[in-house]
């Protein structure tokens, strides 16, 4: 791998805010939309990208991520066109990681072949569960069967780096059914697994349904069991947990997401997409109609030195490798001493990382890095 050391690293993100149907727990900026809107959106996306690369002459793109929504529902040509445009605008590393997120049932083998040809080299599939009843309670559009078809098609097309999303603490889920999901998924040997526990977010149908009704969801004990099962079963299958909810076979860590936790600069395109450039965080326009009119810019938030320091820790400590203390060590000396004594944090060779116990209560630990 040849890396030009003079170049600064940059990650690119493209937001596709469309899906076949919005899942009942989803609070992302995404909604179903007709062909015409999707067309207009891609046109605007292309306009937003055009010329924007000129400011990044000294950067080299390490990764491109199409997230959503369900980017896979775009016309294949259109998605490829966006990718091509990005590659024209930016200097991309030869081995850049290019991910498309998609849902089972929205991709065919043919489509996937076209992705590969255009340069996509990583696929992220939202499975969530192998239990069709759990899937339907979540409001997912696919079944386990359909997932298997899509996964098979991806392998057949030649994808060698596939992520599968699974979720625990789902309505109707039991410790047993979750284990079945993990077993079935592990049997497929994906390179990467993201394992989340369901969070009931305000403003979603799930919030209406479940907030204040913990009895309708797996109990705390069950939830914790699922969480530990994930850890144990994936470790036994040879996956390394490299971040709180992310597991990979050696060498298959998601570089794009690592970038977020390591505070690599990133440029986001599309509705509501976020960027971190210099020490300023930008968020694009979040109103679709405005975005389509070409008013793509949203808010910008220059980060203070304090905010940068805090982010460095609350993001960096999400990685199981932790972060080097560097110049910040002195500032948090007391806190680190305390958390180390509580066995929530380990310090070794100038790096700190969360212990297993620290990961379990990471919110509690990370919040303390805010001044």
């Amino acid at each position, binding site marked *: 791998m040849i890396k030009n050391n003079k170049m600064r690293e940059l990650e690119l993100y493209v937001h596709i805010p469309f899906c076949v149907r919005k899942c009942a727990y989803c609070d992302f900026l995404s909604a179903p939309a007709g062909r015409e809107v999707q067309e207009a959106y891609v046109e605007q996306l292309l306009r937003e990208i055009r010329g924007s690369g000129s400011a990044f002459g000294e950067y080299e793109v390490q990764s491109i991520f199409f997230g959503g929504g369900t980017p896979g529902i775009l016309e294949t040509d259109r998605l490829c066109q966006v990718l091509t445009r990005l590659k024209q605008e930016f200097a991309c590393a030869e081995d850049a990681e290019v991910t498309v997120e998609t849902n089972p049932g929205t991709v065919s083998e043919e489509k996937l072949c076209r992705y590969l040809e255009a340069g996509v080299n990583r696929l992220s599939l939202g499975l969530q569960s192998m239990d069709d009843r759990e899937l339907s309670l979540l409001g997912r559009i696919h079944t386990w069967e359909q997932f298997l078809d899509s996964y098979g098609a991806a392998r057949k097309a030649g994808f060698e780096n596939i992520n599968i999303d699974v979720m625990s603490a789902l309505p109707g889920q039991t410790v047993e059914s979750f284990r079945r999901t993990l077993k079935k998924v592990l049997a497929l040997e994906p390179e990467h697994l993201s394992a989340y526990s369901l*969070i009931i977010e305000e403003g979603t149908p799930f919030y209406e349904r479940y907030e204040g009704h913990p009895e309708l969801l797996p109990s705390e004990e069950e939830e914790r069991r699922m969480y530990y099962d994930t850890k144990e079963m994936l470790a036994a299958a040879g996956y390394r947990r490299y971040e709180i909810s992310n597991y990979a076979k050696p060498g298959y860590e998601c570089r794009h997401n690592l970038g*977020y936790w390591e505070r690599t600069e990133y440029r986001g395109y599309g509705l509501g997409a*976020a960027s971190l450039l210099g020490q300023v965080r930008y968020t694009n326009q979040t109103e679709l109609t405005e975005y389509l009119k070409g008013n793509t810019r949203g808010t910008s*938030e220059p980060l203070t030195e304090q905010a940068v320091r805090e*982010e460095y820790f609350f993001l960096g400590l999400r990685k199981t490798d932790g972060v080097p203390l560097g110049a910040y060590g002195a500032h948090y000396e007391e806190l680190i001493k305390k958390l180390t004594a509580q066995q929530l944090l380990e310090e070794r060779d100038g790096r700190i990382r969360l212990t297993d116990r620290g990961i379990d209560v990471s*919110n509690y630990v990370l919040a303390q890095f805010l001044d």
Partner: protein
Amino acid sequence: MAAVDQSKIRNFCIVAHIDHGKSTLADRIIEKTGLLTSREMQSQVLDNMELERERGITIKAQTVRTVYKAQDGEEYIFNLIDTPGHVDFNYEVSRSLAACDGAILVVDAAQGIEAQTLANVYLALDHDLDVVPVINKIDLPSAEPQRVMDEIEDVIGIEAQDAPLISAKTGQNVDEVLEQIVKRIPAPSGSPDNPLQALIFDSVYDPYKGVIIFCRIKEGTVRKGTPIRMMATGAEADVVEVGYFGAGQFLPCEELSAGMVGYITGSIKNVKDTRVGDTVTDRERPCAEPLPGYKKVQSMVYCGLYPADGAKYPDLRDALEKLQLNDAALQFEPETSIALGFGFRCGFLGLLHLEIIQERLEREYNLDLVTTAPGVVYRVHKSSGEMIELTNPSNLPDPSEIEYMEEPMVSAEIMVTTEFIGSIMELCQERRGIYLGMEYMEETRALLRYELPLNEIIYDFFDALKSRSRGYASFDYDFKGYVQSELVKLDILINREEVDALSFIVHGASAYDRGRKMCEKLKDEIPRHLFEIPIQAAVGGKIIARETVKAMRKDVLAKCYGGDITRKRKLLEKQKEGKKRMRQIGNVEIPQKAFMSVLKLDDKK
């Protein structure tokens, strides 16, 4: 100013149940008698504290003088003395009534007589006031004036068939009220030449004039230079100014003579010298006896007030001192709590008074407070023969030194529609009430009489009463005296450490129940820690209830990618912010609101 013709003076007050329209009627009277145009009138002139307007209650007595040109062509001076509207201020009410010669009784045409109506009317009749009934809110669709008139006659026994039917809101028939004031309320008596005898019914502190005494001249005359003495407190002063009350302003005049209502100033520094109920006399020519009815106001309810931020302790002291300038009933002394640090043990007339002071400290003085559970004054009789008045549970002597204890009782009247009699009786029973009797006001309503321990009603009795009667019960009480009682100190241990600020005195029979509820409540209030936290209730070292706050074993944010960072930061900040409002006790962080939330323990809704 020429001598005032006594026969043209009417000194009166308005009594009513809360929300029956007392203040609105007062406004209309002021407006109709031309003191202010309606445009100048801020709604409800007499309630001039922001808090009073918000809560729709009168806290301090307010007084206004207006001139009314009656149908007989004569001009009459009306002194309207507005009385506080809450049982906490019963003594103040009684002194205000003593300053009047008559009372207008306002009854809501839809609701009829309520508990406070009765209490206030009886108080007025006790002071030999002529009571003029008025039926208000006849503009309401649910108004039943005839039923209410009959009720007034049946229940109170005063003539009500010619009561004016009014709407204070619209002003309808308010003129009739004015005429009845002239015709049915007697003119004052007393001679301007007798030795001075004036009743203090309120006083306020003014930074320029010193204390301003509100008084009713019963006998004699007072003017600038009169050497006065307060007969109970012994305080002396020379009068600097006398005058009467405009709307929200003081209007100086030459003299006040028998029958008049007005104010006196004399460079008096402290309202403690001019206690409500005291008699002002001329120290060179004193009256033979003070007016009857003076008593020193006793604090009935005590609690600890602590600044949330320990550094604000001096600010809290300053604020309390300032409030006390105007409120002789507020008492405070410094105390220290292991859990809460430096603060004050404060005494109040009742729970409303407590809440008002607390709110004023928070709003007007911008203080963030932690309040401990309010308690009453217990009498602890020690084997040594000594008696202590216990205001802070932490100071309870060792049980081996205690011979017996006494607690204050009140006699309570609860007015309730018949369908809720059962549940209200059950409530009183739970609160150790002694049933005294029940009278039917009419077919659908009854008046329940109970003797209740004060400590059972200061917490959430009123809320419980309202919720168990769907808001239909009304309540009034009067302090009765002390009785011997089996009392114990209930201690709360959090992570095996006693938290002094959570201790309270409770009847032995309710200790178990209260302890259990306290533990349950605290379990909900205390956030999870990295370790398990036992919460225990104990009496005399013996654990009687226990709950456990489970250890936090998982607190993970699943996703955190590029677009979520700002949001996740806010989440973490919120978590961090929450910690700031905590009190550290041993290894445990207790949210400040936990100290208050344990007051609301009624579980029947």
